[in-house]
């Protein structure tokens, strides 16, 4: 009688620990990435996108590297202006471990191909589909650029066009981490 009572107590308290622990744990885990929109100091949402050659790129593939994630479209003049600047920056810092991921804002293949051939861009141009990734990142205006440190946290988010000096400065800072 006594021992069965003890077993019942332990079973119930264990069940409480498991169920309660799971419920509380998920809220703690969720609050880490809540708010939906990535913030400075937070982690950028994961994505899995295809480039112009059909290779799949995942953000997590670039773990441990300094990454510039840029959202752009051919319809956005400041984005268009930035693309060759990113190309020069990529050439300059590539050997220091810089990665640039330029995510196109769900435009069609012909448009993107024409654009990229015109500028001869060598960094990966990723194709968002149906604005999914863009929504995940909570974009409100274009271009928007995320500077992601090698530890996977966001150093800076720049909304709007940037000068090449500004980009250079950001990347130099990014590579010091």
């Amino acid at each position, binding site marked *: 009688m006594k021992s069965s009572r003890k077993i019942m107590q332990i079973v*119930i308290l264990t069940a409480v620990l498991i169920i*309660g622990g799971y419920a509380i744990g998920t809220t703690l885990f969720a609050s880490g990435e809540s708010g939906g929109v990535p913030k400075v100091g937070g982690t950028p949402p994961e994505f899995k996108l295809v480039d112009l050659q059909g290779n799949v790129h995942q953000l997590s593939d670039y773990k441990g590297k300094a990454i510039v994630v840029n959202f752009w479209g051919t319809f956005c003049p400041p984005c268009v202006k930035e693309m060759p600047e990113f190309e020069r920056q990529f050439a300059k810092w590539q050997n220091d471990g810089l990665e640039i991921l330029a995510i196109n804002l769900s435009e069609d293949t012909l448009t993107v191909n024409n654009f990229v051939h015109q500028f001869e861009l060598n960094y990966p141009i990723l194709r968002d589909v149906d604005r999914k990734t863009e929504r995940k990142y909570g974009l409100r205006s274009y271009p928007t650029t995320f500077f992601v440190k090698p530890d996977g946290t966001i150093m800076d988010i720049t909304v709007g066009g940037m000068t090449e000096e500004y980009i250079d400065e950001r990347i130099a800072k990014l590579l010091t981490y």
Partner: protein
Amino acid sequence: MLSIHNTKCECGHQNAVGTVLCESCGKPLMEDQQQNEPLEMRYDGIARRSQKKNQNLIDRIWSFFSSVKIAIYLIVLTFLGATLGTIYPQENTFINNFDIAAYYESTYGTPGKIYQMLGLSHTYESWWFITLLVMIGTSLVICSLDRILPLYRALSKQQIRKHLQFINRQKTVYSAKVDEPAEAWVEQFAAQLKRKRYRVHMDGSALLAEKNRFSRWGPYINHIGLILFLLSILARSLPGWQMDSYITIADGATVPIEGTNYYVKNEKFTVDFYTDDELPPELKGQARAKLYETAAVLYTCSSGCEAGETPVLEEVARHDIIVNSPLKYKGLKLYQFDFDLTPKLISVKPMLINKETGEQYGPFELTMKDAALNYELGPYKMRLIANYMDFAVGENGEPTTLGREPNAPAFVFLITGPGLPEAGQPYMYFPMQKDKEKFGQDQINGALASKVEIKVDGMQNVNFSEASTSLNVRVDKALNFVWVGAAISMIGLLMGSYWQHRRIWLRIDDGQLSLGAHTNKNWYGMRADVAGALQKIGVTVDPKSLDNGGNNA
């Protein structure tokens, strides 16, 4: 509170620590009880399971949650916490993904910022709120178990002949001299109680009559329901158990539902407005929707569902969604939420015309989104080399696009064929007549414009979406369990509140009748039962005179 004293009753029964009334004869065991006050009958005076000496850690946790006082504190704290969540709108009431921190500050000022920073903008998903719920759940389980098991034991083996002190210190009592033989009197009285649907047990000159014992289980059944309710709410955090999102689909388009394997097609969105005749005078001239309906088809993706692949879809359900008539499929519900009546060009079917001979080739299908690159039309070959969804001439005179929606689409084809250079000649085509004139299609194409023309013949060859629909996607697997829990809890509540457990004890010692009766509520009814039964055997008593004082009598 727990006095450590000899727990053996004078009747010889060994009681557990914390017992208030002897489990067997009912004699009050606590010395500190006032001598003549009505007895504390809660849980029939039994000890709760957790009341024991030498508590170890598990016992202490157990007793903590077993305390009703703690349970009330927890409930009050949860209520107070829940009210905090009602000060400003919660995050999950916003549809769009945007910068929530900035929203609270800009809308509600500094209090809003503090509110958001404290995490109160998602009160009901916060760790502390869930912790309170888990603690209430634990308290419900432990409080109930700690009381129901001993109570069940006590009620299922009740002693018929109770201690005189127990009988005389009930809240409803009666005593008198009985001249008849004791057993005959008891038999007579028992017959009357049976007519009142009491279950009667007799032991010579002692009697125990009882009715509606099941109402004692009401609170525990209620608790089982509440526990199920709480568990279902906690289960919402399981992956795939809850979802509340929004999708917008243009007419004819198929879009994936994020986070699921489903795709939805909007075959046709229809909206009907009330005519002015149907509207009251103050609303005349306004566009009031009478019906909005989405002919929706639900698909699952069977292969090629990864990024960059072409999904293979299988139809699983179709339904004409109107307000309050969602498409339902395996717990997934699609509700009509909103619509947008801005037309969007999807595709055109133009002809290629040789202007010199008048010969026509085609039609060929040109889609606005991801158009095919090569076309063969009779002797002509066309290759699409550029497209602009929202055509404009840029600062440097180059063609450019202002956006990605086909508001002013333009296509550049490289045409080869009779009378044209072998390398081909570029031809710019504006599917919309207004753009053709605005941007001067013929001037752009120059000499080529007099040789060939791409032209749409009639509206039947223009395919555009008249509208797009917004659907609310919901999954709530927990909801059914919530309903079951609520139903069980309601059954328990009714059991406990519409019936009362009534008991009557009596014994006749040397012609002296001692009668005591107990119920958990409705003492008026209890006294009426006793007085009524006595009346039937010729003893007239005023029901009020049976009242022995005490609270809630």
